């Protein structure tokens, strides 16, 4: 059995520590657009990374295969590929497979082979299991059991492209300017302690959920222990993984709306909760009482995405930057305002959200041109 934690975190530190640049852009009307803008925007924040990791997530990417799970797999050897392909044939209905097109780029050294597979679950799964859970389990299996291969994207009609290099180099390598999607997120990485590994770049994804993350989560130890109780195995030993699993638990398994889940990850202070009207107070208090171990404490900004939604969130005292920009149906999230202005100079509005205040872009809902005050959405929901 291969220990992915060892690949990603060879020194076996408590967790991988990194700092980063983040960018996200979404057309809430669902219009698809090319990656040209986001590539320029993330390149504008070049110095926030150090070339040891860059990546993108794109939604609305494969309309032709929208009903199939798109697995992107990185191979370190021919045997690895043979093994995984045999495994996939055995466990899925294969609709289409190809090597992901790339071009020679100066900054990219020793790239692994990356293939994509469009897979249907069909009759392969046990009856009582959902398709999503079946796929998630198989991805875990490949990533922990099979050698020389790593699945870094597994959702439908979306994909993650990532690797070692600056994000603009990764974009050039994977020809991302040629793709179209309605939601893009991007990440440039500055790890302090890993030699870098293709699978360790962001976005980090499970099914169609992806996370790009800037920060260090000081509560990692307990977040991880809590999630392990629900069967999550934190194989990568990064705090980003913990964010992804926490969202998966709260939203997919426990059925909480993302705005409420954000109140778990970055809850209001007890004093602020005491000042809320009774219904909201009780909700917020109960959330903290039950999910206290999921509070993400320490500096972070994350952009979480899945089909139809993009969420920006900082820790509750905003120790890492996040700027929001709105132009018509377009919502921008970025580590730096300059990156947004570079590709959209005439924004309707740009602002810095409060610490712990989730910024949610939703398909079919125009982005809020005004900042939402803390607790407002929850209030209207709770009463």
């Amino acid at each position: 059995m291969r220990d992915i934690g060892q690949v990603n975190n060879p020194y076996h530190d408590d967790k991988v520590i990194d700092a980063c640049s983040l960018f996200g852009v979404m057309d809430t009307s669902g219009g698809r657009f090319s990656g040209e803008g986001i590539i320029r925007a993330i390149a504008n924040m070049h110095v926030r990374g150090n070339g040891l990791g860059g990546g993108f997530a794109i939604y609305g990417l494969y309309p032709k295969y929208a009903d199939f799970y798109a697995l992107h797999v990185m191979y370190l050897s021919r045997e690895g590929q043979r093994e995984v392909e045999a495994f996939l044939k055995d466990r899925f209905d294969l609709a289409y497979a190809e090597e992901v097109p790339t071009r020679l780029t100066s900054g990219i050294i020793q790239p692994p082979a990356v293939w994509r597979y469009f897979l249907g679950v069909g009759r392969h799964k046990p009856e009582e299991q959902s398709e999503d859970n079946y796929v998630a389990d198989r991805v875990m299996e490949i990533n922990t059991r099979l050698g020389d291969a790593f699945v870094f994207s597994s959702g439908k009609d979306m994909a993650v492209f990532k690797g070692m290099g600056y994000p603009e180099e990764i974009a050039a390598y994977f020809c991302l300017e040629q793709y179209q999607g309605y939601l893009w997120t991007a990440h440039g990485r500055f790890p302090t302690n890993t030699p870098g590994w293709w699978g360790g770049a962001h976005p980090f994804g499970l099914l169609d959920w992806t996370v790009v993350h800037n920060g260090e989560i000081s509560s990692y130890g307990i977040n991880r222990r809590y999630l392990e109780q629900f069967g999550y195995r934190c194989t990568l030993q990064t705090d980003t993984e913990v964010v992804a699993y926490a969202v998966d638990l709260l939203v997919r398994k426990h059925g909480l709306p993302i705005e409420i889940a954000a109140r778990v990850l970055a809850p209001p202070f007890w004093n602020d909760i005491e000042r809320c009207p009774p219904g909201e107070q009780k909700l917020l208090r109960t959330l903290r009482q039950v999910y206290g171990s999921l509070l993400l404490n320490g500096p972070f900004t994350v952009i979480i995405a899945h089909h139809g939604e993009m969420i920006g969130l900082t820790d509750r005292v905003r120790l890492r930057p996040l700027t929001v920009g709105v132009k018509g149906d377009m919502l921008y999230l970025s580590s730096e305002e300059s990156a947004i202005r570079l590709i959209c100079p005439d924004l309707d509005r740009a602002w810095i959200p409060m610490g712990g205040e989730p910024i949610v872009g939703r398909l079919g809902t125009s982005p809020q041109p005004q900042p939402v005050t803390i607790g407002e959405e929850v209030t209207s929901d709770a009463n």
Partner: protein
Amino acid sequence: MKTYLPSKFLIERDPERCIQCQVCVNQCSFDVHYYDAEDDEVRSREENCVGCHRCALFCPTRAITISRNPMDYRENYNWRPEVIEDIIKQAETGGVLLTGMGNDKGQRIYWDHLVLNASQVTNPSIDPLREPMELTTYLGRKSDRVELEPDSHCLKTELAPQVKLEVPVMFTAMSYGAVSLNVHKSLARAATEMGTLWNTGEGGLHPDLYQYGSNTIVQVASGRFGVHPEYLDAAQVIEIKIGQGAKPGIGGHLPGEKVSTEVSLTRMIPQGTDALSPAPQHDIYSIEDLSQLIYALKEATNYTKPVSVKIAAVHNSAAIASGMVRAGADIIVLDGLRGATGAAPKVIRDNVGIPIEMALASVDSRLRQEGIRNQASIVVSGGIRNSGDVAKAIALGADAIYIGTAALVALGCHVCQQCHTGKCAWGICTTDLALTKRVNPDIGARRLANLLRGWSLELKDILGGMGINALESLRGNRLHLRGIGLTDTELEILGVRMAGS
């Protein structure tokens, strides 16, 4: 019989300073100092001195110095002075050696082998003077998840009763009778002021203290002293006492002399009779019996308050704790090897039980493995000395901490280990009215509240240094601990890595 015991302490009285005022004579409850009228001189019977320092601190001219009697035995690692003297005592009395306070032996104190983390460069530390820093803790059973109404997103989940603590440090069970009413008053007022809880112990709740009910934990122990409906109703939490760290498996014995009128009323037993707490609870011979008592108490109080169960930390704590949670306990209390007592057989106090650090680590891990950690809060006690110990206990997995000895030290106790004699010169562990008035509840409450205030400020500094602004992010977060000078097995049980790794 002529005693062969040497005096433990030497008392020097500086003749230049002594003004023969006899304060020491009046302060000493162990009959050490006396006034020799013939010679007009105050003298000492050193053999009676227990080293409680009461006289030295109250002497107006600071004339008294107390030091250890340097009388050395021939060196012998096996036959150490304490061993020899214990044999002498038993040869002279023929009884069980009794003692007070907690285990004073040299078993490893793991707190001293654990160190905490702090932020540098990659994440900022947080300054608690400028930023909010949260210590608020809720004790009680938590649900597995929060459910909302499908459309309105209103809260559907109704949590079991929760108790709020502003500071994660509570005052542990010390019964009225073992300690004085003034001590109870001091504890109750300090707990109320600081937003935490104090615990009645097994001796009932004095009528004057019902007003502090919302900050009170009432105990139901094997003697059932002072347990009645109003007592249960008054409390915020009900605690079933199965055992205590100082004397696992052993009952209690409050001698008849200590059962004064007031104590007899509160305990609901005749004045002057011995109050005997049986070793086991005679209605609990197994786990299903515990469950029945838990639910009987919940029924009696209409499911309005958490029920806690306290055990001494023993070899199988993890399995026992898991059973307790499944039996319905909302809070489990683990009292470790160093837990203190008003009176216990010395051989039990010093030899039975396991260190609290180990018990806590294994119970927290076990409950997590079984996926039931959220169903009960974990409270630990037994030798917790300062906020550093508190922070480490929380990082190992505790929800809150009980302090007993530390609280008594705040009231004046000098840990002389004479609590079982009923003669406490500091007026703490006694019901002698001449002595109990030495604790003024107003001043006592202030000293206790100050202690908790100091610890909270320090805890906030510790959290801020780690870049964390809420206690729940430290709770069970063992990555913020590292071990020093521990073996692999110890590290494995503690779930902590070696410093430098």
